[in-house]
């Protein structure tokens, strides 16, 4: 599973960052996210347990990061609506996935604004921690403040519970893809059954 996730992570086109291959950007994100877990596990457990649990955590992280990087939220919403899911629920999934780039862009704007006011994020660990604290507060507060306005905006644009949204451009869903989805679902159920029994 881990090998599969890492191979998928290295798939070209999964993300974008100047100067790095997209797949490598995702791999770097996975490794940076999973690294603290490995450190804690190594402190708390022996090597065998650390490897066993650490690989599972890394697999989960890799799967999620790859999903976020490779899946266009708008495409997911269209596919879910076309499959008959509630539009509100589909938007909830899509908005969760699209939150990462939105927050990243906003954090970039806040950092630039703070730089313009003389706060530098460069230097030693203490300076970076100060810059992180100065970034976190406006980032969280502005995100919370925006929730109210976004709720009003979505309401006025018709995204209310119980609607039957018209799919605009549903992604093609071939018989092979449908079969693959069912096979994966059955594989998960089989793995769960084996684990429990």
């Amino acid at each position, binding site marked *: 599973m881990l090998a599969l996730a890492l191979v998928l992570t290295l798939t070209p086109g999964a993300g974008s960052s100047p100067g790095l291959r997209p797949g490598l950007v995702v791999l770097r994100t996975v490794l940076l996210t999973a690294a603290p877990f490995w450190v804690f596990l190594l402190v708390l457990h022996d090597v065998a347990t650390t490897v066993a649990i650490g690989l599972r955590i890394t697999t989960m992280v890799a799967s999620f990061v790859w999903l976020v990087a490779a899946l*266009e*939220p*708008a495409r997911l*919403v269209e596919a879910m609506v076309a499959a008959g899911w509630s*539009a509100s629920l589909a*938007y909830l999934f*899509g*908005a969760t996935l*699209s939150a990462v780039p*939105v927050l990243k*862009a906003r954090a970039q704007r806040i950092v630039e604004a703070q730089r313009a006011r003389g706060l530098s994020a460069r230097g030693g660990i203490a300076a970076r921690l100060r810059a992180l604290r100065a970034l976190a507060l406006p980032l969280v507060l502005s995100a919370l403040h*925006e929730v*109210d*306005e*976004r*709720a*009003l*905006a*979505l*309401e*006025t*644009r*018709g*995204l*209310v519970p119980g*609607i*039957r*949204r*018209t*799919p*605009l*451009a549903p992604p093609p869903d071939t018989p092979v893809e449908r079969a693959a989805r069912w096979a994966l679902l059955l594989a998960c159920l089989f793995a769960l059954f084996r684990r429990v029994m």
Partner: protein
Amino acid sequence: MRSLTLEGVSFWYPATDSPALRNVSLHVARGEIVALVGALGAGASTLLLVAADLAPRVTGGRLTGSAARHDRSGIVLPTPWTQASGMAFSVWDEVAFGPANLGWPTHEIARQVDRALEQLELAPLASRDPVTLSGGELQRVIIAAILAMDPGLVLLDEPAAELDSDGARTLWRLIRLLAKEGKAVLLATSTLDALPEVADRVVWLEDGAIRAVGPPDLLADVAACDAGLGTSVATVWRTSGLPGPYPLTVAHALRRWR
């Protein structure tokens, strides 16, 4: 034929003791353009939220009096970046987001979206990714997105705030066109110079209550100018110490001079 009727409406936001609106009675007819003016905090934005049936239903709070809406409404809020769906690859998809949520057939969605893009002069940007747009362009996209839902009651909160002068002129022309088509328009704006040419009626709000209602000439009233609600020409006239009533526009001022 009325599109919106408010009778004795007072509104309190959650956890506040003083009302944001006090005993407001107002009606807006189909084909009419009503402008809300007032100082910051006068209640214009809140009045639009009540008219859109978003306050108190979505915002929370408490409302007394009655608010009757006879047409479906669409509201444009002042910050375009919080109104983008975040679910669109292109401007066309962004504008189609609302109509699709209404469950319309695809050919009707396409017709309304193309029409709204033309009205806002956005057709050349139809394939652009919304995240690459400037604030003014995105504001026009959001206005188009609301118009594509074909609301009978159009509510606009500072619609020209992000627009350059050309974009604002296009918007004011469009608002007159919407009224000609029979839509009711209720707008809150601090761009007072446009109102003599655009608005049929002006409602002056002060501390959540209606202080005066009348034709755009209201903006040349001595009391309105004293409250900072005069047009540029009226304000210059007043500052120069010339006697009232003040002229609203350059054309009015010229007529007075002659």
